[in-house]
């Protein structure tokens, strides 16, 4: 009883911290985009958090942790709603109550959609985004999640993803990649000759705050993924998480200094996030030194993949894909390279599951995107884009009293 109480307290705190990450994402996104689209982005985030939670309550939770399988280990049976009876039984789990379990997982669910929200900012039709987000959170996220955390076939394969480098971040990242591919770049992101131009963020301080808030949230994201308050596991996890974040930032800052001879704060920030995503798959498996390595490499990946996306004419205003997709993949593979599970077989398993996830997300993501494009269209018309979505879709400005460019 005492132990359950302690564990549950820890899990509830972690839940609160993961919830708080949504403020981090919101700040990060509105800071790295133009002020004329700020309200639109915030509206999207508020929608994702609120609707995401309700949907996860109605469907997602059971789809992700299936009592029974329709296709064994691949697709769970849908049992809508929460189960108050199960909740009453405190022997549900010694680490947390049923309610805590739901809420903690529910906070995770919205994250995947939020990752997409950042990448498609400043040009997507809000209704289309809402549709995409709902479908993605209702279908793709819980199904992939069930493969591992729902003890599906990833689990049987021996795949390891501690807190979701693949199951949460890559899943969101793949979705983002697919949608921006069909959506196209923002007007003014590439010149006639296809060279990338700079569309500078409107409020870097909020972005910086967002990154620190996300780092704080990761105390809960990874710390809570221990699923109990086990002293050594939780504290080790926090240490590796923080060291990887720190190393990620340093890695990105140094590399962009070297490549572009510039002390680039936004790269520093994305590097921290890259480090966090990178350690997420193996946070409980690593020693401090390995965590630092994983972070450093993640930081480098961020800087290089930002440039890569520019080369590919893909427009990701907030760097969601470098951070969540590429570092998510890196982190998942790193479990096979560093730490207690390191080994060739493990590496191949990690690689295989990364691949399967990618294929699945790309296929379903494409279907969803094309479906939405067919029924509602994806992109606002050029006039609205130039004017800004705040006035066009929400009838008001984000910084009413301020003179803006």
């Amino acid at each position, binding site marked *: 009883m005492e132990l359950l109480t302690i564990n549950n307290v820890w899990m509830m705190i972690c839940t609160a911290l993961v919830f708080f990450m949504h403020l981090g994402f919101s700040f990060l996104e509105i800071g790295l985009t133009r002020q004329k689209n700020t309200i639109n982005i915030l509206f999207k985030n508020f929608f994702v958090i609120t609707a995401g939670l309700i949907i996860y309550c109605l469907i997602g939770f059971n789809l992700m942790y299936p009592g029974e399988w329709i296709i064994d280990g691949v697709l769970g049976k849908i049992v809508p709603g929460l189960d108050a009876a199960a909740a009453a039984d405190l022997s549900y789990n010694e680490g947390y109550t049923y309610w805590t379990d739901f809420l903690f997982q529910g906070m995770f669910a919205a994250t995947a959609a939020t990752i997409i929200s950042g990448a498609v900012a400043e040009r997507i039709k809000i209704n289309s985004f809402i549709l995409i987000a709902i479908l993605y959170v209702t279908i793709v996220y819980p199904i992939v999640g069930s493969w591992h955390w729902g003890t599906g076939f990833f689990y049987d394969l021996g795949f390891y993803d501690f807190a979701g480098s693949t199951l949460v971040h890559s899943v969101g990242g793949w979705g983002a990649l697919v949608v921006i591919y069909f959506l196209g770049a923002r007007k*003014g992101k590439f010149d006639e000759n296809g060279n990338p131009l700079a569309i500078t963020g409107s409020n870097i301080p909020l972005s910086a705050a967002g990154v620190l808030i996300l780092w704080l949230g990761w105390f809960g994201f990874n710390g809570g993924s221990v699923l109990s308050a086990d002293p050594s596991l939780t504290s080790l996890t926090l240490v590796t998480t923080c060291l990887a974040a720190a190393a990620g930032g340093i890695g990105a800052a140094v590399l962009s200094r070297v490549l572009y001879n510039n002390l680039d704060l936004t790269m520093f920030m994305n590097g921290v996030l890259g480090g966090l995503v990178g350690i997420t798959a193996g946070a409980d498996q690593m020693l401090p030194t390995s965590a630092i390595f994983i972070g450093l490499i993640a930081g480098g990946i961020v800087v290089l993949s930002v440039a890569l996306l520019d080369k590919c004419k893909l427009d990701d205003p907030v760097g969601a894909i470098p951070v969540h997709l590429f570092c998510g993949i890196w982190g998942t593979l790193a479990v096979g390279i560093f730490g207690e599970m390191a080994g060739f077989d493990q590496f191949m398993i990690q690689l295989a599951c990364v691949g399967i996830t990618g294929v699945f997300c790309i296929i379903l993501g494409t279907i969803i995107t094309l479906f939405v494009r067919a029924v509602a269209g994806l992109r606002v018309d050029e*006039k609205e884009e130039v*004017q800004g979505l705040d006035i066009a879709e929400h*009838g*008001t400005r984000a910084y009413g009293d301020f003179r803006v460019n």
Partner: protein
Amino acid sequence: MKKIEAIIRKSRFSDVKKALHSVEVNFFSYWDVTGVGNEKVGHVYRGVTYSTADIQRRFLSIVVSEPFVEKTINAILESAYTGEVGDGKIFVLPVEEAYRIRTKETGKTSLN
């Protein structure tokens, strides 16, 4: 020398800028102003719907020598045009003298 003041839609600015460059007018200053005129736009805030004639516009100040006046004006007339109420205005004012601070030179050579 003349001073050409153009008040245009912010959304047309990049095209206007291109048009000016295409007639070798690469020298001007601009800032944002609020314009009052025929155009009205509607807003909604916390359930209150209202329409305002105070619209954000861009103000261009371009000093050119006589030979440039006409093509400058035409360039703006073309590039700032949408046909809807609110396209803006162009005004021409006389300028008696001009100086380039860097070189102290005066007259039309100082303009570019």
